[in-house]
Structure formats: structure tokens, C-alpha cells
């Protein structure tokens, strides 16, 4: 027997995380190379939900494509709508009526809260805090009810139109809205008590999946995942689109960019969103158009245009090339989830299997947006 054989040898094993797995948030697949409980290597495999959205856009009219955007980041449908109609409006230089702008802000921020609540719930669930999941979804349900009141559907809301929004709100809606906001604040406090303050949760998340500001920027990550590293960068604040310059709100940041910071930033952001909605609720003009005057058939002038908004997962950008016909010549979507998932291997490498799950959950990937 040689000398080497006497030494205890460990063998690496490769396991699939997905595409059918309880905690991949969809049909995402990663191949983990494990040495016992330690993750040595992670390989991303994407494309299980690819539907060719960008190509579909080329054979649809500008208006027809709006419902497709709902199906990209299906947890933040309204924000996706916003990005798309925004780029068309920018190219056509359409002025959106004031009331419509306020409605966009209210619905957009509600959608952001709904999206973050799914994040919070699924993060808790991935650490097996089932009750946290139910709490978050209970609150999200109230927001979806609000969407139903206005637009008729709950998940793929299809709320925005080029030049405005599809439906005005009723007085009952405004009444229900302020009730929901109060409930949400209470719900967030509950979530803080149940999850944020929990010793086990903090032990699982603090100092796990750390990524500093520079590396994060090099990966192109934006949104809450970037703010978790401590960089104060929010499109709504730094280059306000729509009417965000009229509201007062803070941009919460984290300390060191670990999983806990990514959680904490989002929880704080939800409180800020509530603040924004309250202000918009106060400032909104009583009456007014909700649609600008736009031609029946939308034909933007020849040219190209880029428009970006602060999505719930990061900067959501739409790049549109028009040849002057009724169909887009080319549409490209810059989806934040796709960028975020790219950093997952580097963040989770070297940790335990359970850390990898926590990191993946903290990145808030939505497969509809990653694969498009």
C-alpha cells in the first residue's frame, strides 16, 4: 500500500439544484460540486423558461406587446409595463397626464412592495421559516386584491398603456388603499419580529455570501443587491424619472453586502414605498385624464431609445429600435435578475450547501425575467 492511500481521501460529488427543486424559485438549475457539505463550485444553467420575448416583440404591434412584459418578471408585472411603455413614450415624446403619473407611482410602488414581500416570504421559506412565508403572502394578497379592483387581474396586471394607464381608480379603491397600507406596516413589524430578529435567521444570513461594492458593480448588479453593499444608488433618487422628484423618501443601504443586508434593505425599502404611496395619495389631483392623446396605431419615428426604471430587483432597462413601422424593429430588455444570478456562483462558493440556498434566496431571482 502506498503512502498516499493511507491518507483519508474525500470525493467530490456533483448534485443538481433544480430545474425541479423546492428552492430555486422556478426552473433555474445550478450544478453544485460538493465536498461533503462544502460547496466547491457552482455552475449556472439557464434557459428552461426561455420564450423568446424579444423576438416575439418584433412581430407584435407596440400595444400588443404590453401584456408580454407582464410575463417577464411576473412578480412585478406593473414595473415591467412601466419600463416598456416608458421607452415607447420617450421615443414618441408623449406627455403623460399628471393623474396618470400619480397612478403609475401608486401602482408601481404597490407592485414593488408585493414583489419584495414574495422575496421576504420565499427567503424565509428557503430557511424553512414556513410561517414567515405565510405572513408575507397574507399581506401580498391584500395588494393583489387592490390590483384586482382596478385592473381586473391580480398577477399579470397589464395596467399601463402607452400614454397613460388603462383604468382610473374609484373612491372605494382609495379607501381600501389606506387600510391596506396600515395593514402592511403592521405586517412588516410582524415579519421583523418573526424573521429579522430571529437568532437562527441572523446566524444563517450574517456574513454569508458577502460581496463588496466594487465586485458587485463589476458584475453590473443594481437595485437592492447593490444597495446592500452600502452604495446609495437608486434611480428614483439619483436620476428621477416620472414624478419621483416630488416625493420625500430615504434610500436604505446595508453595511457589508451579505445575505442579511440584502434582506434588511428590502424590508426597509418596503417601508419607504409605503411612505411614497402615502405622499402620492395626498398629492394626486382629484380629476384629470388618465390617457394622453395618442394615435390609434402607434408608429414611433425612426430611431432608437433606451429607458430605464428602478425595478424591484434592480435597474430594468428597455432598449428599443424603431424603423417607423407599426412593429418594433428590435427590442432588448435589460433584466436585473439575469445580472444578479450571474454573481451567484461567486457569492456562494466556499460556503455550505445551506449557505448557497440562503444566498440564492437573497438575490431574489425570478426566472421569468432571467430567461425571458
Amino acid at each position, binding site marked *: 500500500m502506498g503512502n498516499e492511500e493511507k491518507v483519508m481521501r474525500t470525493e467530490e*460529488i456533483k*448534485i443538481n439544484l433544480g430545474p425541479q*427543486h*423546492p*428552492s430555486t424559485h422556478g426552473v433555474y438549475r445550478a450544478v453544485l460540486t*460538493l465536498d*461533503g*457539505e462544502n460547496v466547491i463550485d457552482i455552475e449556472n444553467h439557464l434557459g428552461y423558461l426561455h420564450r423568446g420575448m424579444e423576438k416575439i416583440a418584433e412581430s407584435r404591434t407596440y400595444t400588443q406587446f404590453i401584456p408580454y412584459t407582464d410575463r417577464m418578471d411576473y412578480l412585478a408585472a406593473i414595473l415591467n409595463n412601466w419600463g416598456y411603455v416608458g421607452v415607447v413614450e420617450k421615443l414618441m415624446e408623449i406627455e403623460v397626464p399628471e393623474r396618470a403619473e400619480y397612478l403609475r407611482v401608486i401602482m408601481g410602488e404597490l407592485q414593488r412592495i408585493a414583489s419584495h414581500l414574495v422575496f421576504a416570504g420565499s427567503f*424565509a*421559506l*428557503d*430557511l*424553512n*421559516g*414556513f*410561517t*414567515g412565508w*405565510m*405572513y408575507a403572502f*397574507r399581506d401580498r394578497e391584500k395588494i393583489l386584491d387592490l390590483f384586482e379592483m382596478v385592473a381586473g387581474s391580480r398577477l399579470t396586471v397589464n395596467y399601463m398603456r402607452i400614454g397613460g394607464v388603462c383604468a382610473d381608480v374609484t373612491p372605494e379603491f382609495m379607501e381600501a388603499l389606506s387600510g391596506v397600507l396600515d395593514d402592511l406596516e403592521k405586517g412588516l413589524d410582524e415579519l421583523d419580529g*418573526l*424573521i429579522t430578529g*430571529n437568532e*437562527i*435567521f441572523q*446566524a*444563517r444570513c450574517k456574513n454569508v455570501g458577502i460581496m463588496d461594492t466594487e465586485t458587485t458593480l463589476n458584475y453590473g448588479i443594481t437595485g437592492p443587491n447593490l444597495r446592500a453593499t452600502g452604495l446609495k444608488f437608486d434611480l428614483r433618487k439619483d436620476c428621477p424619472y416620472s414624478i419621483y422628484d416630488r416625493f420625500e423618501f430615504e434610500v436604505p443601504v446595508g453595511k457589508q453586502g451579505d445575505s442579511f443586508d440584502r434582506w434588511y434593505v428590502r424590508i426597509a425599502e418596503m417601508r419607504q414605498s409605503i411612505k411614497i404611496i402615502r405622499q402620492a395619495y395626498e398629492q394626486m389631483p382629484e380629476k384629470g385624464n388618465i390617457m394622453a392623446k395618442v394615435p390609434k396605431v402607434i408608429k414611433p419615428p425612426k430611431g432608437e431609445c433606451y429607458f430605464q426604471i428602478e425595478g424591484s430587483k434592480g435597474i430594468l432597462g428597455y432598449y428599443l429600435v424603431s424603423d417607423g413601422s407599426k412593429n418594433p424593429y428590435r427590442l432588448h430588455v435589460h433584466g436585473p435578475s439575469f445580472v444578479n444570478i450571474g454573481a451567484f456562483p461567486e457569492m456562494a462558493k466556499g460556503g*455550505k*450547501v*445551506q*449557505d448557497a*440556498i440562503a444566498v440564492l434566496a437573497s438575490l431574489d431571482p425570478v426566472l421569468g425575467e432571467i430567461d425571458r
Partner: protein
Amino acid sequence: MEGIFLRIADFAKQLFSSLNFGPEITSILMALFHVSAIIGFVLLNVLVLVLLERKLSGYFQQRPGPNRLGPNGAFQTIADVIKLFGKELIIPKAADKWVFILATIVVFIPAVMLYAVIPFGKKMIAIDLNIGIFYFIAISSTATIAFIMGGWGSNNKYSLLGGMRTVAQMVSYEIPLVFSLLGVIMIAGSLKMSDIIAAQKDVWFIILQPIAFIIFFISSIAELNRAPFDLPEGEQELVAGPYTEYSGMMFALFFLAEYANMVSISAIAVTLFLGGWQGPILPSWMWFVIKLYIMIFLYMWVRWTFPRIRIDHLMHFNWKFLLPLSLVNIVITGIGIKLVNWLNWF
């Protein structure tokens, strides 16, 4: 009410002896009678517990829980059991067939054997062994083998990882569990269940041994593989750990064993810390059941509140915190006993 089960047992004994088979056969028949009574108790409890767990989790999560079948969903578990019976038993081609099948039996038999030494009420104990608690610990530790058998025999990477986790966890947490019982045994001065209960006539051991109770509670959750220590199953990481490849009744046996173990370990907690079946007015077995379900409620409460702990924290917590603490508890208990003796002597 008090002696209702004892009378049933007496009746059975008379019935068996009236058959004139001789004393050996009669005692074997009586043993069979006890075993079937215990299995009946276990199965009945599991039926109730599964429903209770789902209802309680619903309550904790502000949702109704199962509410379709029967009054307020009361028959849900029965439907689940029927479904499990109807499922196909799948044995993967790559699996080690015998190990794979045997694991289900190896996990279930100790779970039932544990009940031999549990005092369900006054004189209601199958065998009052003079090493009762020792027997309990010895038998309960064999369950570990079943998990590694299931994990290895399935020939599945998730199962193997789960099996590895189980062994690491159950073997480590066994030590503080046993040490926490030692304090009680030192005060009672006996390993016999009836003696331990008799020693709690005036004051329950949870008052004399609060730290031991907490250590026992925590490490028993780990022994039961329940959240927050359900790493072996680790749904979010390992799909279902050792259970991944099991289906139908083979899976149900694991499930049954898990709940049976929860009942038996709660029963031990009741016996050793909560004064056993002792209590005023109500019959002793009813006191036992009430206390038992208080313990079970605690286990469920913890399960539906906490997230899962990480594997290395799990080990640190055990070896660097629980184990030293339980040792300290033993030392303090020893000093305390000596002090009390010394005071009495004067």
C-alpha cells in the same frame, strides 16, 4: 374511570387463562395483547397528531388548515392514509434492495419498542424494567441506523447527504440528551420509571432541574429531526434527505416512526420532568395524555416558528454549548444532593 384500562387487561388475562394453554402461552398472549394495545395507541396518536400539526400550523400562520373532509377537516388524515396505501411502492433499480426495504422496518420497530417502558398511568406500564430509562436510551439510539441505511441504500446523492447529516446530528445530540437525564436519575436514585415518578410526588423535576429540562427539550428536537433541527430532511437543500426515494407505505413508515418517536419522547419528558401520570381529580391516564399533549404542542410550536439551523452551527451548539452546560448541570446537581443530605444529617 381510574382503572378502566387495567380492568380490560385483567379481563384479557382471564380470557387467555380460561383457554387453558398453560402459563407460558398465556404470558406470550398477554405480551401480544400489550403490543397490539401499544401499536393501536401509536397509530391512533399519529392520526390525531398529523391533523393536529396541520391545524396548529394553520393557526400559527393565520390560515384555516385542512377544512374540507369531515367536520372542520377532521377526516383529512384518514384520507391521507388511504391515499398512501394506494400508492405504488417504487424501489429504484439502482438501490440496494434489501437495505432499502429493511430501513423502513428498522426505523419503525424501535419506535414501537420504546413504548414498553412508558408508564401511561397508574400501574399502566407494559414492563416496569429496573433499567427503564436506560432501555429507552439504548433503543432510541438504534433509529440512527435506519437513516443511514435509507440514505445509503437509496443510492441517491440527496439521500446520502441526508443520511450523513442524520448520523452526525443524532449521534452528537444523544450525548447532551442522556446527560440531561442524568440529573433526574441522580435525584431519583433509580432508573426505574415507577421510582422516578414516585420521587416526584411532592415536587416535579422540572422545578429541581430546569436547565436539564431545557437541554432535554432542545436535544430531543434534534433527535426527532424536527425543525429547527430538521437538517436530515432539509427540504430546501436536499429535497427530502433519506426519504427522497421512498414512496407509498414505505414512506409512511418513516413518517409514522417520526410521530411515534415524538409521542414517546414527549412521554419521557412527562415521566421524568412533569411528574408522570400524577395529578389530582382526573384519572391518571388522562393526566398523562394532557401532559403529553402539552409537550407535543411545545414541539409543534417550535417547529412552526423557527427557521432551520446550519449544519456547522448545529455541531458548535451541541459540542461547545449544550454538552458543557449539561456537564455543569450534573456537577451542580451532585453538589446539591450532597448539601441536602448534609443538612438533613444535622
